[in-house]
């Protein structure tokens, strides 16, 4: 599917988009869960979300360049734009980018609703698919997230060996 976004009457931050999307997505997923159970719903949602995230990755690669420097811009300008996650970069070379996210309003949004499990599904699961679309030679290793209750998210992007 082609990107559908057209001209906007006000600039919309990434966080705002995700919240607007969540307003229909959350009840929709809850209705699916009630009807089909968690496993089937998870499959359906993850497949769709991953495809959209890969498209995001491709678009961001075109905008910022498909290398580590471009990835850093994605994290700092797109994700953290409008003051969303606080990104603490601990290492950057041409082969890897490591940062910890110490505060995440995406996670806070879902946690306030008591829906951190849905947040992980809708939000955090995007990142692995995104990097595949951004640059297939890079991969993401992440062992913990704020959404899951950790003190920070440990993003480790690196060139595949």
């Amino acid at each position: 599917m082609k990107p559908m976004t057209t001209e906007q009457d006000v600039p919309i931050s990434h966080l705002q988009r995700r919240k607007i999307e969540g307003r229909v997505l959350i009840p929709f997923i809850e209705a699916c869960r009630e009807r089909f159970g968690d496993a089937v719903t998870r499959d359906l949602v993850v497949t769709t979300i991953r495809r959209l995230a890969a498209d995001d990755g491709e678009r961001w690669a075109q905008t910022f360049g498909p290398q580590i420097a471009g990835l850093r811009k994605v994290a700092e300008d797109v994700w953290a734009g409008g003051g969303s996650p606080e990104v603490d970069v601990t290492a950057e070379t041409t082969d890897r980018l490591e940062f910890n996210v110490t505060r995440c309003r995406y996670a806070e949004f879902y946690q306030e609703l008591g829906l951190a499990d849905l947040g992980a599904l809708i939000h955090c699961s995007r990142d692995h698919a995104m990097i595949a679309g951004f640059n297939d030679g890079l991969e993401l290793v992440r062992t913990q997230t704020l959404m899951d209750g950790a003190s920070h998210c440990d993003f480790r992007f690196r060139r595949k060996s």
Partner: protein
Amino acid sequence: MTVSLIEQAKIQAEVLVPLVKALQDELGEARANDLVRRALGDIYRRYGEAFRRTKPDADVGTILASAFKTYSRGGALDYSVVEQSPDSFTIDVTACQYATFYKALGEPELGFLLVCAADFPVAEGIGGGIELERAQTIMQGASHCDFRYRRRALDRGA
């Protein structure tokens, strides 16, 4: 300034359209659409209820005139008011960017399911005996949408 409803609808379509299509593949169109209608029906009923709370004493004509101003923001709708009274609100929508958007995607049926179908639960949520009758929509290919909101006779003078 908040994001207009048409922009919100476009953002939501980005994820809803592929999700509903995946669901249709899985369940068949009728069962999938039924699920979507019910899931979204609950959301939109709550929107109607929340909207009512902002104007607890407004009559039918006043509250719906205000609702359509919101729907139209960002040039989303052209419409002419045929009748507005304390018990009724009758308009013809002659241009609809929601329909233009879904038609451009080649998905007017999904547009009807995701956008037009919301008007009924919203009316329910607004409450006070308001009923919507609508025989045709631009999304379905008609020249205009004929919205007829009325207050049920039973609830009048309440």
